[in-house]
């Protein structure tokens, strides 16, 4: 009974905090006021101040988490809606996402392994460029630390928002389509918001790139993890 009560309160409170965070972001619109950052920040502060453990929070949290699965399935819909653009740019998007996934994961595993981190932590690093629901799903399948995975996903998102222009200048990537592919593959939803600044078509290409690279990572990551992490 108490658990049911605690669960109910956490769900309602989390939803309220989320709705407020969403409204604040609409008003301010800075990259750092995205609802996921502000709501996480508020909830952590509340938990720390009232000395509530994460395990208690998760009594309700696990119910919210249950919708992550259908959220991934729902991503098929934007992909379907943009199928004409998908067809038009199929090869650049496929090759781009494959290159990014392959290089990103391999270098990530190599660096983290050299630094001496344990396996589960390195697995959570491999999914950093993937949209959050898919990243969490892959970590649950491969035995990564989902929370760390979620944090790395956030870092990847902000990395794209703040540094993509510098990177594109450095590597002379000036094609709008290519830029959108890079943002979608590297920085998921936050990358899409950046690509949208250049136009709706760029946003769509970025969305497709994000979903395609999410599928690519879920196929390649287990294989690369086994090859580079477990065997050697």
């Amino acid at each position, binding site marked *: 009974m108490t658990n049911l009560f605690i669960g109910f309160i956490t769900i309602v409170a989390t939803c309220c905090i*989320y709705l407020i965070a969403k409204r604040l972001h609409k008003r301010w619109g800075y990259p750092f006021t995205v609802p*996921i950052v502000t*709501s996480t920040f508020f*909830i952590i502060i509340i938990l*720390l101040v009232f000395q509530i453990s*994460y395990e208690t*929070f998760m009594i309700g*949290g696990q119910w*919210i*988490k249950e*919708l992550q699965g*259908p*959220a*991934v*399935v*729902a*991503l*098929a*819909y934007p992909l*379907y*809606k943009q199928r004409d653009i998908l067809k038009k740019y199929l*090869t*650049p*998007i496929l*090759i*781009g996402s494959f290159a*990014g996934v392959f*290089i*990103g994961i391999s*270098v990530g595993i190599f*660096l983290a392994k050299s*630094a001496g*981190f344990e396996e589960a*932590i390195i697995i959570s*690093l491999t999914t*950093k460029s993937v949209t959050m*629901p898919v990243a969490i799903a892959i970590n649950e*399948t491969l035995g990564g630390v*989902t*929370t*760390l995975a*979620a*944090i*790395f996903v956030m*870092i*990847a998102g902000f*990395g794209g928002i703040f540094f993509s222009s510098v990177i594109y200048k450095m*590597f002379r*990537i000036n094609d709008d*389509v*290519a*830029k959108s592919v*890079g943002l979608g*593959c*590297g920085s998921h939803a936050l990358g899409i918001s950046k690509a949208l600044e250049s136009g709706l078509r760029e946003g769509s290409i970025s969305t497709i790139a994000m*979903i395609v690279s*999410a599928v690519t990572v*879920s*196929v390649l990551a*287990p294989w690369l993890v086994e090859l580079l992490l477990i065997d050697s």
Partner: protein
Amino acid sequence: MLNICQVIIHIIFLYCIYRIGNWIQTAFDLIIPGSVIGMMILFILLTTNVIKAAWIEKGANFIINNLVLFFIPATVGLINYLDFFAGPGFLLILIALFCTLLVIASSGAASQWMLGRKEK
């Protein structure tokens, strides 16, 4: 009210596809997450017109617009890792950032190269 009902029914429908994806994953012992399998199934069913977009549209839009809510439980888990990131974990932040820029650069470069080839 009708709208809310539609959203709920659509989400239940998406949830069923997710469950089917999970079932396929365990039945064939696949390493791809069940939800991703579910997404591929839905995409195929939509493009082959087996499922009409109108059957899932409202639920899918609702979930995608509020995607962030479902990940708050995961990110709040940071509370258990505050010490970790204050210590050796900080290095991982730098690695994650470096690799992200690498992904953006290589994806962008590779697709620009493909686009250039197409035009010639």
